[in-house]
């Protein structure tokens, strides 16, 4: 009797030790990338690309490929930037557009999210407006500027209308495809845990759909920014304040090509900066926390 007892304990202890060993062997090592490597692999290549573009640009100007009125020198564009900075208007102009773009985007977020959820979860709604929603994505948002001007006149309401019509379909569609791609296993697991109905949506469907949703947000921002620029260029009015789109349009009116180049560069840089500062870190964080980021 005693011997069986010892045998049992030995076996049990053996199991615990074996398990600890297995866990140690199988443990996944996670490593943070050193700063040097980040600089070398992520920062250096795009910096080189930008320098190359600048060098080619300067080379074309120096070689006098075309008249200076058609291709301004990089230095002329730089001077324009420095002027705006010294006059103190640079940040104002950028902020006018960025604040418009971001508040329009947030509004689109507030409308697009419930809309997307409704389309994803309610079959009738999906059949009714799903195709229209994906179709709207291929309609250039600049097409909404004329009706928006006729509806609201030249004011902020018109700008926001154009942004919303451009961004809401992207955000809603991103959420729909995110929900569609939720693995059925998660839904089954959720149901056996008691997450049904709204609880299932909140605890399982939404978090599982987050990567697709974020991709939709990213695209939604790109569409917001593009729509806003279209609206600002077409509908410039002194009442609206000077944004980047108006800056571009003013450059054209004054036949000021360096100013036009500067405006284009600023629009590009702001679009990229918002993506790099807000959306990319968000996306990376979500993917990394789920082990989905492949190095």
């Amino acid at each position: 009797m005693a011997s069986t007892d010892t045998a049992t304990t030995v076996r049990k202890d053996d199991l615990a030790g074996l398990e600890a060993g297995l866990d140690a062997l199988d443990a996944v090592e996670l490593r943070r990338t050193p700063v040097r490597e980040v600089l070398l692999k992520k920062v250096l290549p795009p910096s080189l690309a930008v320098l190359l573009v600048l060098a080619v640009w300067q080379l074309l100007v120096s070689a006098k490929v075309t008249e200076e009125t058609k291709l301004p020198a990089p230095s002329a564009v730089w001077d324009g930037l420095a002027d705006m900075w010294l006059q103190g208007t640079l940040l104002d102009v950028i902020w006018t557009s960025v604040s418009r773009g971001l508040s329009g985007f947030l509004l689109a977020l507030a409308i697009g999210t419930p809309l997307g959820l409704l389309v994803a979860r309610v079959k009738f709604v999906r059949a009714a407006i799903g195709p229209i929603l994906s179709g709207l994505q291929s309609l250039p948002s600049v097409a909404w500027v004329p009706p928006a001007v006729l509806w609201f006149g030249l004011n902020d309401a018109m700008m926001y209308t154009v942004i919303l019509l451009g961004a809401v379909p992207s955000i809603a569609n991103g959420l729909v495809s995110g929900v569609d791609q939720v693995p059925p296993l998660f839904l089954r697991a959720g149901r056996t845990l008691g997450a049904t109905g709204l609880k299932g949506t909140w605890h399982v469907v939404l978090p599982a759909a987050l990567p697709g949703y974020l991709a939709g947000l990213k695209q939604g921002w790109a569409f917001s920014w593009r729509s806003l620029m279209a609206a600002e260029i077409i509908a410039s009015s002194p009442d609206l304040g000077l944004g980047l789109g108006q800056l571009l349009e003013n450059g054209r009116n004054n036949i000021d090509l360096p100013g036009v180049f500067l405006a284009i560069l600023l629009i590009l840089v702001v679009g990229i900066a918002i993506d790099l500062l807000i959306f990319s870190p968000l996306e990376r964080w979500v993917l990394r926390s789920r082990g989905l980021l492949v190095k």
Partner: protein
Amino acid sequence: MATTLAKAAEGTAVEQTHAARIEHVSKSFSGPAGTQLVLDDVSLDVAPGEFVTLLGASGCGKSTLLNLVAGLDRPTQGSIATPGGRPALMFQEHALFPWLTAGKNIELALRLRGLPRAERRPEAERLLELVRLGGAYGKRVHELSGGMRQRVALARALAQDSQLLLMDEPFAALDAITRDVLHGELTRVWEETNLSVLFVTHNVREAVRLAQRVVLLSSRPGRVAKEWTVDIAQPRRIEDADVAELSLEITDHLRGEIRRHGQH
């Protein structure tokens, strides 16, 4: 007086004669090739605290039966009763939510069960201790090995505090060494709790290694073909001679069932 009351309470607990009662259950699916009968008149009881394995070749409808017991699908005919409430279910894949840590996965189950917020964290840590993963509370799912993931999945299933645990080939995707260890873990956890287990597998030795009773299902349609009571003391090992002997006998029956399908 108090003792009588306690006895009476005990009496009602004893009266519950089954953790799951499957009575004359049939299930058919209609597909492009017409209606297909998957389960045919299956009757099976799982007693409280009993460990039953359902064994069968592919096409015997064992996963279908488990889904029916779990309430994820309805039988075409017959009835299924699980008096202990909604059963817990473990899958072949761990099915842990990758946006939550191991601990938070368990806490979600506790929350959905209605446990107050303050009690969730200690209970989740207790359950992780139970599957010997005390330090894994803050670990993300992808940081855990396959065996650790299934242990967290087991802890999450236990968090439902259900009397019945359904397991759908939960160790099929693991390597042999890890599977052996998890067999030991599951047996230990089952002995420490008063859980009833209905465990589906196509692995005869696994069935004999774990169960008190092995139920063999025939294929297409699934019917209860034969039952064995396993009278081997735990802890068993999959290599034990008596496990091997019974496995051999059951395998012969299983092969007989499979051969029938090649004859027409």
